[in-house]
C-alpha cells in the first residue's frame, strides 16, 4: 500500500523522508533536554501549520483566528479530565467535534454571505477575540484566574491520561505531525483533494463544472478546525495550565500560521519545513545574542532580527521556502503545490 501511496514521489524524496523520520525517532535518546524541548516546539508548529494549511492551502480561505479551535479543544478536554476524569483521548474527540461545528458555523456564515479575502480573515479574528473575552468570564473553567490540571511528581508515563515526561509528549507530537502529513497526502490524491484544488485555483470554474463548492469548503474548514483542536488538547496536557488570554489570542493564531506561510502555503511539506526553519531560528537568535544581552540588556533585539529574517524570506521567496528547496534538492514537488 505504501508503495502506491508514495508512488509518484521520486526515490530520492522517499529516502530523505525516511532519513528524517529515523533521525526524529532516535532524537530523544541522543540530545539534551533543552534541544528536546526545542524539537517538541518544532513538531508542535509543524502539526498546527499543517492543520491550518488544510483550510488555507487547500480551500483557499485565510483564517487568522485559528486559536479559537485550539482553545476550544484545549478547554473541552481539560475540563472533561479535571472535572469528570475523562481520558484526554475522548476529550480530544469531544473537542474536535465542538471545533468542527464552530468552524462549520463560521465558514457557513462567511461563504453564504460571500465574504472573502481580508474580510473573512477579520471575521475569524472577531470570533476568536469574542471567545477569548467570553472565556475570561466563564468561572467554571477558571476565567481569568486560569484553569489548572492536577499534576503530581511521578516516575512513570501514562499515555492514556497524557501524564508523563517530555519524551512521551515528543513522540505524541511526532505521531501527530507524521499522521497529518500522511492524511493530507491521502486526501490530496483522492477525489476530495482534486475538488479542493479546483476550488482553490478558480472557484467560479469549479462551480461551473458542477462541484458543490460550498460543501467542500466547509469540509476543509471542519477538518482544519478539528485537527487544530486536537493539537490544543495535547498542548493543554503538556503545560497543564490554561488562561484565555494566551490561548485564544491573535498572537497565537499568527504563531500557528507563520511556519506554514514561510514554508509554502498549499504545499505538503511547506508547513514542516517552515517549522524547522522558524523555531530553531528563534532559539538560535536568542543564543547568539546572549553574550550581548549580558552586556547591553537590550530586550527585544531578538524579535527585531526575527522579524527581519521573515521579511527577507517573504521578499525573496514569495511562494515559501519549500518550493525553492525542493527544486534545489532535485525533487519534483509532492502534489498539492502551487505551480
Amino acid at each position: 500500500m505504501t508503495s502506491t501511496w508514495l508512488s509518484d514521489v521520486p526515490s530520492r524524496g522517499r529516502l530523505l523522508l525516511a532519513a528524517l523520520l529515523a533521525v526524529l525517532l532516535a532524537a530523544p535518546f541522543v540530545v539534551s533536554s533543552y534541544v528536546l524541548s526545542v524539537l517538541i516546539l518544532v513538531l508542535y508548529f509543524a502539526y498546527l501549520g499543517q492543520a491550518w494549511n488544510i483550510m488555507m492551502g487547500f480551500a483557499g480561505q485565510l483564517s487568522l483566528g485559528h486559536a479559537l479551535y485550539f482553545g476550544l479543544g484545549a478547554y473541552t478536554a481539560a475540563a472533561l479530565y479535571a472535572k469528570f476524569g475523562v481520558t484526554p483521548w475522548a476529550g480530544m474527540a469531544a473537542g474536535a467535534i465542538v471545533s468542527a461545528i464552530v468552524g462549520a458555523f463560521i465558514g457557513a456564515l462567511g461563504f453564504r454571505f460571500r465574504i472573502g479575502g481580508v474580510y473573512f480573515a477579520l471575521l475569524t479574528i472577531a470570533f476568536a477575540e469574542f471567545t477569548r473575552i467570553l472565556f475570561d468570564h466563564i468561572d467554571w473553567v477558571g476565567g481569568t484566574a486560569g484553569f489548572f490540571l492536577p499534576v503530581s511528581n511521578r516516575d512513570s508515563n501514562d499515555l492514556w491520561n497524557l501524564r508523563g515526561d517530555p519524551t512521551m509528549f515528543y513522540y505524541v507530537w511526532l505521531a501527530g505531525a507524521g499522521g497529518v502529513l500522511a492524511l493530507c497526502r491521502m486526501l490530496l490524491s483522492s477525489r476530495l483533494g482534486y475538488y479542493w484544488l479546483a476550488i482553490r485555483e478558480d472557484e467560479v470554474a469549479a462551480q461551473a463544472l458542477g462541484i458543490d463548492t460550498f460543501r467542500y469548503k466547509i469540509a476543509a474548514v471542519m477538518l482544519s478546525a478539528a485537527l487544530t483542536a486536537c493539537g490544543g488538547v495535547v498542548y493543554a496536557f503538556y503545560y497543564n495550565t490554561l488562561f484565555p488570554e494566551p490561548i485564544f489570542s491573535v498572537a497565537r493564531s499568527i504563531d500557528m500560521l507563520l511556519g506554514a506561510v514561510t514554508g509554502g502555503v498549499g504545499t505538503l511539506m511547506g508547513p514542516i519545513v517552515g517549522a524547522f526553519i522558524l523555531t530553531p531560528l528563534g532559539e538560535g537568535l536568542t543564543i547568539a545574542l546572549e553574550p550581548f544581552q549580558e552586556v547591553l540588556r537590550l530586550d527585544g533585539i531578538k524579535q527585531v532580527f526575527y522579524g527581519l529574517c521573515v521579511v527577507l524570506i517573504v521578499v525573496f521567496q514569495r511562494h515559501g521556502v519549500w518550493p525553492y528547496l525542493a527544486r534545489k534538492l532535485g525533487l519534483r514537488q509532492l502534489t498539492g503545490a502551487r505551480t
Partner: protein
Amino acid sequence: MSTSSRQVTRRQILAAGSAAALAGAAPLRRALAQTAPLKVGVLHPTSGYLAQIGQACNRGCEAALPVLKEMGYPAIEIMNGDTESSPDIARAAAERLINAGAQMLVGAFESGHTLAIAQVAEQRGIPFVINIAAAPQITEQGYKFVFRNFPRAGAIVGGTFDLQKQLFATSGKTPTQCVVLHVNDTYGTAIKGALNALFPKYNMPYKFSDFIAYDPKARDLSVEVAKAKATGAEIVLAVSRLNDAILITREMVKQRWEPWGVIAAGPGWYENQYMKTLGKLGDYPISCVPWFDPRKPLAQKMVDTHLKMFPGQTVDTNTVYSFEAMLICADAYKRAKSAAPQALVDALKTTNIKDSASIGPGISFDAKGQNDSLGLAAVQNFGGEAKVVLPLASSERNLVFPVPGWRNRA
C-alpha cells in the same frame, strides 16, 4: 546588582545538561556536600507590566543575603529567572532554573505565574517557597513540594475587614456603602470571591453597592470610575495593580470624585512608582496589606540593610516577604544538613521561626504548606512614603480619614 546572583544562560543549561548526563552521580554529590551554598532559583516578573514589582522583590531577596550570613546561616546562591509577566514564560523559566541546578525555588508574586511554577516544582520534585501570591487554590492542590509564607485571599479579606472596623472606630466616621473596583485577574477574582464569602461573618456596618471588574490591560478606566462614582458609595475598596491604581486615581481627579477614602486590599497603591508618578495626588490611600512589623528587630535590620544596599528604594510588602522567603530557605537548609529535595521538604515542614520580620507570631506551615498566622497592617501614603497607621499599637503615624479632597492639595 549583588555579586552572588547570576542570569542563567542557555549555554550554561546546555553545558549543565550534558555535564549531568556524563556525570550521573552529580546530584547525589551536590546533596551530600552541605557546606556548598544552596542554589535558590528566584523567579519574579522583572520585565513586562509587573517589572517594577519584580525588581522590588529581587531587591528584597538580595538584601537578605548579608543579614543571613551575619546570623550564621549557610550561604545561599541566587539564580535569577524572569517570569516576564506571563505564566507560559514563568513555567519555562522555572524549568530552566531547575535544569541549571536550582535546589529550591522562590517566587513569584503573581498568582497565575505562581500556580504554573508550583506545577513544575511538584512535577520535578523541587521545593518551592512562595514569597507572595494570594490565590487560595495554590495550597489546595495537594502538592507536597509547595510552601507559602503569605496570607491567602480569605485571610487578606478578613484582615481588611478587621482593620476597617478599627479605621471607622478610630476616625469616628462609618460609611453606609462601599463600592469594589477590582482587576479581573487571578488575584482580583480570588479577593472578590473571599469578599462575598466572608462578608456575612464579619458584621460590617456598610453594604457593598457594586462590584466593578476591569481588564488588567485596560488603558482607560473612565467608565469604571464613573460607574463607581454613580453608586454614591462613601468608600472605595480597590483591588488593583500599579498601573490601574494610577489610572483610577487620575480618573477620580478628572471626574471630581472625592470619596472619604480609597482602601486597597492589595498592591499598587503603596508602591514607590505610584507615589512618584502622582505626587501629591498619590497621598492618603490606605492599603490593608501584609507588611513588616516595625517593632521586630529583624524587620529593623532588614530595613537598614535594604536602605544601605539600595538607597532611594522603599521597603514594603514585596521586600519583607521576599526577605523572609530567603530566611526560610536558609533555615531549612541549615536543619536538613543536605540539599536533597526530600530532606529539604521535611525540614520545611518543621519550620518554626519565631524571630521573623512580618506581622504575626512567626513562620510555620500547616499540613497544606500554608502559613495561616500572618497578620495585616493598614499603611497610608504620606509625601512619598507608606507608613503604618493601624493597628494603633504598631502605628508610625496618625491616621487621616476622611482624606482631603483633590483640590485641597497644592
